[in-house]
């Protein structure tokens, strides 16, 4: 199965996912635009945009090993972090003017400590992300966003006004609306785009200036709306799990005849399912509320598991999903627990679940393929 449209835009998005530095980003860098990296989708990218800079979500695509980071992280740390830190140590992230890290997990929070000691990024800022969804925790994150805002202002001598934040929120919300529109196309019985290509589209949003990305995505959606479908799938699948930014992984899944029609990923649905309230008087308060309370939560958020499980069940209905693939990067405690709990919820709802441990860098494609094939067969497809 493949996406039938021969869209130039789709090819550009696919190219973007294959490297860290892409031509559009390089052009901006050459013009003197600053680029701020962030490690987690809870990082308020809108603040970076409002500062006139480009937010760039950290990935480790193209990593060729962990020789450098092995001196700092052990073999029982997540392979995403080991590869990302390795790239940082190798100088692949020297183009960053700043980096935002959150205490989103035990592996990533130590990246902050290692990065600021070893890599000369001009601004390395840590944010304390609450673990509960309550009014006081929203207020806490409101303060954290303001601390970040001030750090960027002070470091780069810029003023991030409320108007600029509002403008940035509008821009990011537009991305979210467009991505939802793209996903709506996947609800069709014969969707016009594969899961692998969709992931390329959403990943590209985290690596391109959104002012360029949004019109490109509009164009792609227009193309896809007129395009024929990818073909008959053996099974419609939903992928849920930890950091997944490699379309090749989805390609392997889809090489079995299954089609990934939706996901609960932080490079996907979690990033656009909800929107930031544009009408709130204080735009920082709107950001805090969105990130803590409104967007689908990460399993690190305590007490919100029922809502997360409900989201999976809702998506299964909306996208007519036959089975769920729960992927986890080995050594990730957060997703170990989440998938364990989800197993019960999906069993109760009669939805098949395949638990799949993996490494960040695609390896053992044959093994993954075999397991997916067996999963699809077990669903009688």
């Amino acid at each position, binding site marked *: 199965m493949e996406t039938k449209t021969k869209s130039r835009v789709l090819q550009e998005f696919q190219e973007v996912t294959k490297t860290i530095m892409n031509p559009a980003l390089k052009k901006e860098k050459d013009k003197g635009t600053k680029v701020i990296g962030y490690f987690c989708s809870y990082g308020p990218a809108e603040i970076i945009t409002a500062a006139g800079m480009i937010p760039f979500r950290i990935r480790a695509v193209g990593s060729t090993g962990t020789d450098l980071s092995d*001196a*700092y*992280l*052990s*073999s*029982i*740390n*997540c392979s995403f*972090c080991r590869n990302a830190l390795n790239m940082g140590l190798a100088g692949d992230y020297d183009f960053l003017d700043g980096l935002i890290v959150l*205490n989103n*997990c*035990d*592996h990533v*929070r*130590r*990246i*902050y*400590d*290692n990065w600021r*000691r070893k890599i000369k990024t001009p601004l390395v800022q*840590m944010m*304390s*992300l*609450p*673990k*509960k969804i*309550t009014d*006081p*925790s929203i207020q*806490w994150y409101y*303060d954290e966003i303001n601390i970040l805002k001030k750090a960027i202002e002070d470091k780069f001598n810029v003023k991030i006004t409320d108007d600029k934040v509002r403008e940035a929120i509008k821009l990011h919300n537009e991305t979210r609306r467009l991505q939802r529109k793209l996903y709506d196309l996947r609800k069709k019985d014969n969707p016009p785009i594969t899961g692998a290509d969709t992931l390329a589209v959403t990943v590209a949003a985290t690596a391109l200036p959104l002012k360029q990305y949004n019109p490109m995505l509009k164009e792609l959606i227009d193309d896809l709306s007129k395009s024929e479908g990818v073909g008959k799938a053996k099974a419609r699948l939903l992928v849920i799990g930890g950091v997944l930014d490699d379309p090749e992984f989805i390609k392997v899944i889809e090489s079995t005849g299954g089609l990934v029609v939706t996901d609960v990923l932080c490079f996907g649905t979690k990033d656009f399912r909800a929107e930031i309230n544009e009408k709130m008087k204080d735009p920082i308060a709107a950001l805090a509320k969105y990130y803590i309370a409104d967007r689908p939560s990460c*399993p*690190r958020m*305590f*007490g919100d*598991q*029922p809502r997360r499980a409900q989201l999976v069940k809702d998506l299964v209905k909306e996208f007519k999903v036959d089975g769920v693939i729960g992927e*986890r990067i*080995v*050594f990730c*405690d*957060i997703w*170990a*627990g*989440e998938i*364990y*709990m989800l*197993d*019960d919820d999906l069993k109760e709802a009669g939805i098949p679940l395949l*638990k799949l*441990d993996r490494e960040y860098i695609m390896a053992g494609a044959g093994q993954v393929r075999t397991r997916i094939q067996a999963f699809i067969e077990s669903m009688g497809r």
Partner: protein
Amino acid sequence: MSKVEKARLDNQLERLKGDKALLQAFVDMLAIDNSEEADLNRFVLQTVMNKYDEIMNCAENDIPFIAAYFANCPEIFTAMDVPWWIFLQTPFLGVSSPFLAADTDETAKMGWATDFCTVLRLAMFYVEKDLTPKPAGLIALLHPCDGTVVVHQAISKSKQWHDVPVFGADSPYWDDERSFKYYAEETDRMVEFVTKCTGKTLDINKLREVCKISNQTYALWAEYNELRKAVPCPHDWTMGPPQCFALACYYYPGKIEAVNWFKMLVGNAEKRVKAGTGMAAGEQIRALWFDILPIMWQFDLSPWLEQEWGVNIVMNMFGYTPYEPIDTTSKETMFHDLAKRSLCQVPMIRQARGVADNFLGDIERIVKDYKIDCVIWPGHMGHKDGNASIGMMREKCRDLGVPFLYIGLDLFDKRYTSIDDLKNKLSTFFEASGFKHK
């Protein structure tokens, strides 16, 4: 109580009774030793057994108790007169080793990833298999690691405990006034929760008295830690940080029993320092074991370390916690200081929750103050943050001029790294560092 209820209760208390029987055997063994050190240890073991009795009594007589942690401001529970316990204490005690390997294997059958902290998997197992008495409320620990957040969420959704009310105090990442204030407010909400679960209320005057006693306890603990700086260290592996932690932070927080025990401990240590008495085997290497002590290996490893290499673990993560006294002026000052203690002073939380500067600073202080010859980071498989800190630890030790060893262990499962492998690694390290075999 119906037959079914009785059978269920028996199942819930089975592990506790097993632990207690083993503890009793240790107490009996110590009874033939008339030394002060044996008295001190006997008291600790008896205290642990008393806790078992307290919880079993609650379970058998329908008295509400809560499941909580030493990092949940336990002085408050003392002041409220609420029975509480750490329901995953069984694997921590190490006395349950006859069950532990089989229990650990069972956790894998439950479908839980085996790279997840063994002790937390076991906690889940005890709940799911109904092998621990059901509390009236569960206070989840949301720090220091991902595992604790996740496992409490899973427990509160489990078949056995899904109807147990749960509360988790949200812990900020920083160690500043804003964080203490936030966590103090969370602690206030925790008190409301405990009241709802148990019917017990908090009397601030009672809390003040409890905090005063707690301050005495911690002052004595600090005094004892000063004495451990002596060369040779007054105590060997059989006495020190684990006992101090257990009594001050868990079994007797803010209770006079802890003060009395610490007085005895300090007295004993003073005598030994004056006499220049250290461990019997002769102290050659003063080590910092920067994690939970090797509980599962205690009887295999600790005597070997002493006899083969003259190693004394002079300090560890559970012993070095420079506590500040609680200001008892008002409710606000007490909650502020209790929050501060729970957030960034109690063991494991202090080292693992916040930024790396916290534990790196501790390593530096301990190496200098305790005249440490080498630092050992066992690298427990559940401590992912610590495992992501090995480079920083190594560099810190290099700067301090002390050798550093990273091992890679499961502190709760001896099969992860065999005892022979462990001894080999340690021997190679000591030899390479120029230490002499005894």
